[in-house]
């Protein structure tokens, strides 16, 4: 083949490609075994989970039956034929939604601050001390594993009914969830800027502030806003502490089979989610900026 590269002596080439192949073989074998493990685990899980594809295929038509009912008013007419009737509770729901967003806001802020403060100590590239790192990791796991309901109950006993215990429970769970997600972002950063900051004698917090945060801030923002969204939708705890919220109204409508209410509330929530997503997108693209070009 015509090539502008000078050909290599055959034995040298054989030696080099042999060395490369043997180094790669180990890696490839690892990948293969990993893939095989996933497939086997998936098959086993499918068996435990009673996956039944025939049933799935024969009844897939029923997938739309619930949607069909969601699009139907009590009167039997389609929802869009009578928007006023469909969104009869718009004012109530909007207020509830705002209310819920306020609760989610406080819970998310407090939790995100907690997760932010802890995530660096849980990252292997910034916290070489095994003990501290693992202690923080286990603590974060504790925060997100103990059900919000249990925290809420403890706080209800301590502080009484009302939004406060719910917000606290949300905040603890949020700290545990975000702390973990944040720390994984931190473990994936480019270490060059970190070296830059460290080499001039910057302290640990300064290194974080100048070299790490600018790299991770956009991902942090995306996780935080997703969590905010989850907390807005989350109904269970707030209902549990007597603070209601749009989530509880939605669950109530689902359970009582007020189909048109379900679809109306759902649309409100989806609208909110979209707005949050659009805001996140703008925010993140600002933070990411033009990106390196040179």
């Amino acid at each position, binding site marked *: *083949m015509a*090539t*502008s*590269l*000078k*050909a*290599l002596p055959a034995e*040298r*080439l054989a030696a*080099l*490609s042999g*060395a*490369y192949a043997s*180094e*790669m073989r180990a890696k490839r074998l690892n990948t293969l075994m990993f893939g095989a493990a996933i497939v086997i685990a998936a098959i086993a899980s499918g068996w435990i989970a009673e996956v039944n594809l025939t049933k799935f295929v024969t009844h897939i038509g029923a997938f739309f039956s619930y949607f069909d009912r969601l699009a139907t008013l009590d009167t039997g007419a389609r929802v869009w034929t009578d928007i006023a009737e469909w969104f009869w509770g718009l004012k109530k729901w909007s207020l509830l939604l705002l209310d819920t967003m306020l609760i989610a806001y406080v819970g998310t802020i407090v939790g995100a601050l907690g997760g932010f403060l802890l995530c660096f100590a849980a990252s292997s590239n910034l916290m070489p001390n095994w003990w501290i790192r693992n202690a923080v990791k286990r603590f974060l796991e504790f925060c997100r594993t103990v059900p919000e309901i249990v925290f809420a109950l403890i706080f209800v006993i301590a502080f009484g009914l009302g939004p406060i215990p719910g917000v606290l429970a949300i905040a603890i769970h949020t700290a545990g969830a975000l702390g973990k997600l944040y720390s994984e972002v931190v473990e994936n950063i480019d270490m060059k800027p970190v070296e830059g900051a460290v080499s001039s004698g910057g302290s640990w917090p300064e290194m974080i502030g100048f070299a790490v945060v600018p790299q991770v801030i956009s991902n942090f923002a995306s996780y935080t806003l997703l969590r905010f969204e989850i907390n807005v939708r989350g109904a269970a705890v707030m209902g549990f502490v007597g603070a209601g919220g749009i989530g509880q109204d939605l669950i109530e409508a689902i359970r009582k089979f007020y189909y048109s209410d379900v679809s109306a509330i759902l649309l409100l929530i989806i609208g909110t989610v979209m707005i949050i997503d659009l805001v996140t997108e703008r925010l993140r693209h600002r933070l990411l900026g033009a990106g390196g*070009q*040179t």
Partner: protein
Amino acid sequence: MLVLEGVSRRFGAKSAVEGVELSIERGSFIGVIGRSGAGKSTLLRMINRLIDPTSGRIALDDVDVSALRGKELREWRARCAMIFQQFNLVGRLDVLTNVLMGRLNKVPTHRSLMRLWSDEDIAIALTALEQFDMGSFAAQRADQLSGGQQQRVAIARALVQEPEIILADEPIASLDPRNTKLVMDSLSRINRDYGITVFCNLHSLDLARAYCGRLIGMSQGRVVFDGGPFDLTEDVARQLYGLEAGDVIDMPEEMPAAVVAAQAATPPVLAAH
């Protein structure tokens, strides 16, 4: 014949390249010189179409390069290999795969996505690596290499593209004298033997004079010099590097001016050859 007609590029308010007019013969060895920030990298990136000109037109033999799209654009890029100033390797992939990136356009997509490279491609890639003493690093991750090693991988990637044009953005910045010679010589050889056009951003005027058949001097985005290596007079260099205005830096007195002036050199041993 590669023709640039009134090519400009702005970044926001800043004009990085402005109204560049050039015609380049096939098989030329072009040195692009100029101060840091003059727009050399931007010019090369526009030829490879990594960034689009804000205005103007780039054409090769009547093909309007600046209007190419899709497959044609990819083929154009495959035809003009780029060696980046900052290497632009994929740090998490091994060295050989990084070099094999240069052959993407020649391999069916489904094969490349599965990383099923043919033996021939691997042989070509290893040959390129070995040419720059990097054969034994083939299985190492690219982000574990020293600066000069990364640069050599980047050069190998460009060569395995078997391009018609090579756009080399300071290909020897991080290289020691021996590797500098290796690299410049192989660029020179493929230019001479295979008629491949080479664009090379260089900071060393001596190297530029030694290797390039034609020099293009840029300043603040404009071409301010265009001529043979021996047209680059003192005055031109003065203007190019903005040294005419009172030079604010004082020179360490104890050093012989002539020595200070020489910026770099291959070890004298070579000069004796």
